[in-house]
């Protein structure tokens, strides 16, 4: 079908931009003599991949939310809360699997609360999730007694281990988890009725409602999915730190949102892709990694990433206006 091939081509082009950006970032650091050797080593690549897991999981859920025209500023607080709950549970003797599930469900609960407030109170998602950002962080500190929760080592801690235990895995289990979920979410967005409704919501909510889509139910579902991914991300954070730290990931929601936007997501809704978001995550991870290798202070990274966000959105705007 000519048309379907054209649709596929369009999708490929949409991701081409971010992909070129990624190649560009890697190329820059790969060409700098001081770091070239260390940067391109398999070890380093795997390290970058592992470091990306937490933002990547958050970005998977955030992609749904942003495509549907919403936003979630509470993502990072949510994941901190989930990591605290997981640590608390393991510490209290709960079997590790149950603790992990509890952590994920906590994230889901916060996401559900976001969705319910947005639809019931008819408030702008920015405001609702801004408030939830504070609430979730506060609750996390409360539960943790304002300190880090130590937890005995279990297999959960191996999820983010850089050298995985069954060596044939090649990468930390956390990375594989991201890959699996990325495929699943991409398929859902492209091939299911729900996925189409997510795009419709973001593109024109009034039209979606007119066509009989239960927009409130869909929104609650979307925010809950976002929350569940934050919960999973929190579990990974706990795995990485081996403690439940309520002060972790402050400001990380901006990284998560930036990844989705760099990957082609529009804050107006109706656009975005899982592949694009993952590329966005990698761009930022490689950037941070390269900057650290160069010995540049943290603030350089922040400036560069901030600049990249502006450039990415500007380029996207230009691509849109040329097309129309």
């Amino acid at each position, binding site marked *: *079908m000519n048309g379907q091939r054209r649709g596929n081509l369009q999708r490929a082009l949409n991701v081409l931009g971010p992909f070129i950006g990624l190649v560009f970032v890697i190329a820059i650091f790969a060409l700098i003599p001081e770091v070239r050797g260390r940067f391109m080593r398999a070890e380093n690549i795997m390290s970058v991949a592992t470091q990306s897991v937490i933002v990547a999981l958050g970005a998977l859920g955030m992609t749904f939310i942003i495509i549907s025209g919403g936003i979630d500023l509470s993502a990072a607080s949510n994941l901190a809360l989930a990591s605290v709950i997981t640590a608390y549970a393991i510490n209290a003797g709960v079997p590790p699997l149950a603790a992990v599930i509890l952590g994920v469900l906590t994230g889901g609960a916060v996401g559900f609360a976001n969705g319910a407030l947005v639809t019931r109170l008819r408030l702008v998602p920015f405001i609702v999730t801004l408030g939830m950002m504070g609430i979730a962080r506060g609750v996390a500190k409360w539960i943790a007694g304002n300190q880090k929760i130590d937890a005995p080592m279990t297999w959960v801690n191996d999820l983010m281990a850089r050298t995985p235990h069954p060596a044939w895995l090649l990468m930390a289990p956390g990375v594989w988890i991201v890959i699996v979920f990325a495929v699943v979410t991409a398929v859902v967005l492209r091939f299911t009725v729900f996925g*189409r409704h997510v795009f419709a919501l973001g593109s*024109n909510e009034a039209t*979606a409602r007119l*066509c009989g889509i239960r927009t409130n139910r869909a929104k609650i579902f979307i925010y809950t999915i976002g929350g569940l991914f934050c919960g999973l991300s929190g579990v990974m954070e706990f795995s990485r730190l081996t403690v439940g730290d309520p002060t972790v990931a402050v400001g990380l929601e901006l990284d998560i949102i930036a990844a989705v936007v760099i990957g082609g997501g529009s804050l107006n809704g*109706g*656009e975005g892709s899982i592949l694009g978001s993952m590329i966005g995550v990698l761009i930022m991870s490689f950037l941070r990694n390269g900057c650290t290798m160069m010995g540049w202070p943290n603030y350089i990274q922040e400036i560069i990433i901030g600049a990249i966000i502006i450039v990415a959105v500007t380029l996207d705007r230009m691509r849109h206006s040329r097309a*129309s």
Partner: protein
Amino acid sequence: MSAPSASPVLRMEQVSKAYGATRALDGVTFELRRGEVHALLGENGAGKSTMMKILSGAVAPDSGRMFIDGRPYVPAGPLAGLRRGVSMIYQELNLAPHLTVEENIMLGREVHSGGWLDRRTMRGGVCNALASVDHSEISPDVPVGKLSVGAKQVVEIVRALMNRSRILVMDEPTSSLTLEDSVRLFEIIRSLKAQDVSVIYISHFLEEVQEVADSYTVLRDGKNVGSGAMEGTGLEDIIQLMVGQKFTEMFPRVPHERGGVFVSLNELKGTAMSSPVSLALAKGEILGVAGLVGAGRTEMLRTVFGLDAVESGCLVVSGVEMAKGTPWARIRQGFGLLSEDRQGEGLALPLSVADNVTLSDFSPYLRFGLISVARRQAAVGDWIGRMKIRAQGPAQKVLSLSGGNQQKVALARLLHQKAEVLLLDEPTRGIDVVSKAQIYEWIGELARGGKAVLFVSSYLPELLGVCDRIAVFHRGGLVDVREASAWNAQSLMSAATVGRAAEA
């Protein structure tokens, strides 16, 4: 063409609806036959949109009954209406721009097995539906945002068809369409009739309505004041029903004299214009600008007003060459622009009538740098009376006014800022007959007072009826300028569509 069948597909009986003290609908009885195109006419505020809201299920009537195919029809909401086969196609199209044609058409009714989309089945259905209205050239995979307005409308119609709608309500369908698209729309309507679909057609373009409708119903002040077959009914009779009195002057002429050249565009080219334009406008002249949608007229006006940057050429006012201007400067120089995009650009909808009228000039009310609210309210109250704007007062939000009254507020702003050169872009689009005539009268008065008016319009009868000279644009360039008497509908249309002025 088969005659519409006798049994009514829709019957509304004694439907009434009041909003507070206002009786929006007063015991309206209305019948729609199967396979007919029925025009619903009436001034703004006559009750047409209330009646359609009740029909679609968005609003519940206070009293009265409705029947579809003889069975009672009591919709709990718009979805119920859809399910009974009633589809509304509004002027502001209800489409999701990022989704493809196929996705929009199937939105909410996707064919799936357990959540997984069945693309092949949907594709087949969509292609068949597009072919049934003779529009197979619209590809199902194009994002709707990239389509022309005419094509978008086809997508909405196809969506209604696939919803198995028997009753289609079209609200001002041709106001944003090119002539070509309008012709194709009428063809679609004819094929809809052949498929036994009935159309309620709402439009202010009475000549169009005469051409496409089988029957008509006129609403006035919430009542059904007359209905019948379109054939054999003259426009004057319809207008008389709409207005309630004899209405002979659709285009009131105010005698005025043309003075010397006031403004001239010398090879003016803006960044948004595709070719330079030279045009001269005299004091006391109404210069019409005709052309198809997209011919470059709006771009020219915006360049003159300083909204788009000037690339080359210049603007000369009273012999003085004007520097590259901004709207701020142009307003000070006496220019006023009535934007084509009334709701988006021309008015600040959430603000009040007073705010909108005085937005471009606060100086009469400034005292020591602060605005005297009382004085402003009084002055705007004056304007409301002078221009017969139907509003509760200067403080009413413009959002809640009807289209015609909103346009009067926008025009009032130009008059309030004492503009000497008025750039009007589609000033009467979507406005009822009576308000149109009022606006023509003011334009005439303005010309009599020595102002210069540039009148961009796609509605040829009004250009021929009101203007002194008419310029025609085609694909971004000026084709010809002649006295209005030297043009007729055919030569204007030919110049606008082909770019060559045929002999009148």
